[in-house]
């Protein structure tokens, strides 16, 4: 029985890898046929769905492959299936399928670059699935290394994206370096990288000298992958890539891998209490900062990317409170609703022939009625409208904050949520409604989607509603976890009614905040809301004193924040490229003038030697 199960696991994993390998090889032949592309990039993920679904019902034993070993320390690839793992993999693969379909439908002119991007996306989601299935620190490390490299290479496929892709590369490499050092620390102390052995070691953390430091390194790595505050610049840079790439990057895969790691290895972060506090503080700061900056960006992709980072901040807050299951539920629901939102705006961008600047859009409501419907439904599912996709996640999040000791945290989180709703409203108003700001040439090329291409997004919305419901019921049955559930409490049905009220209140507050209460008349409410929504963010049209002041104050805050952000980015950039170039220029000049010769290097080396000896003498390093 046992060997049978093991062989089944091997079969499943090899099928996954081989099919993806086939679809990658497939790009080399450069097929013009649409049906072949459907076969390679949609049918194969559907088989993966079947495999993951089957793995829920069959008990599959773990698969252990030895990569290499140093003495007794094994660096293994260790994968195992389970209910939660398989469900998360199902979600990831579902999102992949519904990204690939519009990609094939809307990019009708085949280009080798598009094929390559599609293959990259398939590989990307499979690696993400492996990271979910992994039961070993080394296996997880390989996954995050691959994801970081792949994401920077996908971004670099766009033209003139050197700084962006280098920033993505640098921050992802930094996070994997943190992870590598943590692995080395754990390996020298525990002499094993399996989760079980590591968990046993962290229970008696005081007896190991290095483990406390390794917690902070792992936390830094997760924060880096989750685009949290000191490292958040890469998520905005990554929007340089194709919009379909952004959908996958910013919803389920690389942004969420930190959360996946924290929920899988909760024992590491439970061992040191300070790590939870760091998570809460950083999560809060990021959520506020990125939420506010999403109100003031003008690029569609950047707006949604910033709001993603703020959502990930919510997940970090939940994890910091010890509510690992809630953060996992939020991750799953976020995958659904952010994909819907991003995809509907991918259709909008398609309709206006590739324009992503919201200030050059607007006034296309009558021309693209189908897409507008889609956008509004996706808006409802994103803001947490009762019994839509994100409702369960947000209600669970708020109520789990309510049940902890820090009840006051409810107000800032609700405030952040309101800000994100405002940013979404503004995005929709500016891009679709109001007066048009497009060129006359561009106006001619507006095209709505009709017929077959309309089916996949609606199908995905229905799947997402059911999927989030299933995820929520798993959460309520307390099976949605990788080992730690969080605070166990029973909810009364009343709470969900409260949740409905809170969500609706938030939407109303957001609209009130945006609109002018004095001028609104009953019969003209709709028009005024639209008018003001557009006008509040433009200097010349603001009449109301209050909204003007709010706007100015908000703008000042944002200016400060962006200055800080820019400084941070500049520091990263300059330390990378400009500093290197400048210093190399100086050194090259010296070198050419023969002031610096071999003797210089010898001299420098001697200085280093001397300083080492001095350090050794004083501090005994």
């Amino acid at each position, binding site marked *: 029985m046992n060997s049978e199960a093991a062989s089944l696991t091997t079969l499943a994993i090899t099928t996954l890898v081989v099919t993806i390998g086939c679809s990658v090889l497939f790009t080399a032949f450069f097929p013009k046929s649409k049906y072949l592309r459907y076969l390679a990039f949609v049918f194969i993920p559907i088989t993966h769905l079947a495999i993951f679904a089957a793995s829920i019902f069959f008990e599959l034993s773990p698969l252990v492959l030895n990569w*290499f070993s*140093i003495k007794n320390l094994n660096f293994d690839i260790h994968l195992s299936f389970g209910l939660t793992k398989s469900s998360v993999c199902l979600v990831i693969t579902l999102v992949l399928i519904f990204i690939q379909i519009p990609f094939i439908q809307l990019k009708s002119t085949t280009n080798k670059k598009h094929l390559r991007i599609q293959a990259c996306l398939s590989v990307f989601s499979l690696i993400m699935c492996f990271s979910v299935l992994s039961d070993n620190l080394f296996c997880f490390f390989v996954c995050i290394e691959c994801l970081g490299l792949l994401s920077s290479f996908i971004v*670099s496929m766009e*033209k003139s994206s*050197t700084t962006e892709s*280098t920033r993505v590369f640098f921050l992802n490499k930094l996070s994997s*370096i943190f992870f590598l050092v943590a692995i080395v620390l754990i390996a*020298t102390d525990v002499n094993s990288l399996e989760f079980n052995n590591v968990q046993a070691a962290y229970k008696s953390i005081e007896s190991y000298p290095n483990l406390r430091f390794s917690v902070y390194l792992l936390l830094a790595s997760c924060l880096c992958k989750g685009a949290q505050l000191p490292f958040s610049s890469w998520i905005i840079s990554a929007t340089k890539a194709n919009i379909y790439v952004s959908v996958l990057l910013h919803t389920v895969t690389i942004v969420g891998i930190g959360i996946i790691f924290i929920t899988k290895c909760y024992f590491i972060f439970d061992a040191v209490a300070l790590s939870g506090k760091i998570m809460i503080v950083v999560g809060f700061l990021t959520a506020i900062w990125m939420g506010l900056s999403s109100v003031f960006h003008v690029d569609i992709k950047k707006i949604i990317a910033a709001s993603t980072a703020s959502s990930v901040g919510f997940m970090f807050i939940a994890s910091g409170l010890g509510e690992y299951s809630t953060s996992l539920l939020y991750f799953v629901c976020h995958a659904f609703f952010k994909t819907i939102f991003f995809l509907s705006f991918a259709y909008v961008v398609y309709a206006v022939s590739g324009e992503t600047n919201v200030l050059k859009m607007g006034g296309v409501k009558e021309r693209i009625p189908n897409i507008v419907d889609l956008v509004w439904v996706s808006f409802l599912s994103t803001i947490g409208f009762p019994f839509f996709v994100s409702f369960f996640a947000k209600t669970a999040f708020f109520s789990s904050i309510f049940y902890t000791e820090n009840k006051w945290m409810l107000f800032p989180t609700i405030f952040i949520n309101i800000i994100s709703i405002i940013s979404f409203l503004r995005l929709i108003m500016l891009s679709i409604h109001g007066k048009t700001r497009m060129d006359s040439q561009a106006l001619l090329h507006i095209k709505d989607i009709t017929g077959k291409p309309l089916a996949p997004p609606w199908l995905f919305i229905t799947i997402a509603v059911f999927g989030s419901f299933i995820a929520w019921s798993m959460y309520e049955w307390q099976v949605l976890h990788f080992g730690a559930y969080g605070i166990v409490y029973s909810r009364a049905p009343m709470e969900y009614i409260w949740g409905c009220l809170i969500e609706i209140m938030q939407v109303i507050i957001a609209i009130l905040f945006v609109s002018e209460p004095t001028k609104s008349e009953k019969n003209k409410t709709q028009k005024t809301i639209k008018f003001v929504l557009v006008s509040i963010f433009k200097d010349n049209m603001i009449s109301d004193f209050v909204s003007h002041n709010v706007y100015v104050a908000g703008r000042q805050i944002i200016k400060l924040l962006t200055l800080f952000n820019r400084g941070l980015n500049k520091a990263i950039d300059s330390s990378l490229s400009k500093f290197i170039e400048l210093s190399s220029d100086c*050194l090259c000049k010296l070198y050419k003038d023969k002031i610096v010769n071999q003797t210089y290097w010898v001299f420098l080396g001697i200085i280093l030697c001397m300083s080492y000896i001095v350090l050794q003498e004083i501090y005994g390093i």
Partner: protein
Amino acid sequence: MIELNLVSILILLPILGTVFVFLSANSTLCKSTALWNSAITLILSFTLLTMFNFSKNTIQYIDEYNWLPNYGIKYKVGLDKFSLPFICMISLICFLTKLWILKKKIHKTKYFLAAILLFESFSIGAFCSYDLFLLLVFLESTTIPIIIMIFSSEKNYSKNAVMQFLMYGMLSTICITIAFVSIYNSCGTADLLQIYKHKHLLGPIPFWLLIVGIAVKIPIFPLYYWLPEVHVQSPTTCSVLLGSIALKFSSLILLRILFPVFYDQIMQYTKEISVLCVISMVLSCSNIFMQDDLKKIFAYFSILHMNMCMLIFLSGIGLRYFVFSLLSHSFVLAMLFFSTDAIHTVLQTRSIVDLKKNSPQLVLIKNIMFSNILILIGVPLTSGFMVDIVSVYASYKLSAIYATILVFIILALSTYLFFTYQSIFNQLKNKTDTKLEIPVGHLQINSISKKMVFVTISTCILFLGIFSSKVLM
């Protein structure tokens, strides 16, 4: 009656090949003769790999004949499990260099090919020999073919390189020779297996002399200046042989003499040697940032990588990881230097500034550079990834500071290389930039033999990366 084992045949075959090369009439015949010769050597070395008994811990295939019986010096060759992979690597890379120059015009073809064959023979001999003086003779004879190769290149300024190479080489030769003679005097025998038994008789002087000798060959900090100069000014085949084979003679001395004989001294002075290694890593990394020539970048990368191997050796986690990282270094360097040659034949330049101006026109160069970058960064499934992990682990065993320095070097280097690659191939071009005229020569790279070389080396790197547990066993 003389009975020769397969090992001796491996040493003698390339020498026989040189005779045939000198006898053959024209240059194409020369090339094919040399190619067939080393193909046979390659096949023989891989049959050795299948026939070898890895479970035994002793020397196998021993050939022993008296050479200078008055002094007790013998011709003694054999194989152990550490030298066998090196021999396969040497024969493979020599075969690939000949395959590479198959369709290429070279100056003084006969001398050049004879030099490669002689180099192959001597280096295989050095890795097999179990006699102190035989080892010395083989080791020092390898400098002659390299000098011939540098001289046979058409450039005028190669005199400087030869001078550098000779000066530093002489230093290491003198040190190693004196050390060997003193070992011979105090032990009274030249047989390495006998010396292992008499190691308590030896003083500290030969140890330090040998350390200086290998510090030139690795190269470690104060003595590393010659390597980039020689690499830049020598022809590609020469730098491939130099980078992937000649640097490994340092590891030969480490494995054959220093590790078994002077084990206690190495353990005693680990700290001092490893400081030098880390310093040379830092210096070579900082040197990479300001180079314009691709070959110089790769040469400094080679220094960095060799010092990482040294750290693995010094940490004492196991000799097999040391050997593995050296093999990885060989294949990676061969790949890098072959690709610089490919770029040079197409664009007639190796400068990054020139590449920035006109390379995006060629998909071929982009692909070559892309594979290079993947290898240099250490993507999972390549051997560099494993070497990175093992060297960080090893350096942490030595000291936490070394691990931090190494990690930052890896981070800075990979980011710099990625940035350089992106700025070459992914920047929007100004129309005012002058473009170099591309000669028809780029068709040369499309020949099957050159593609074969790239495919073979990258398969080797992937094999080392994926099946590393089997290689390590």
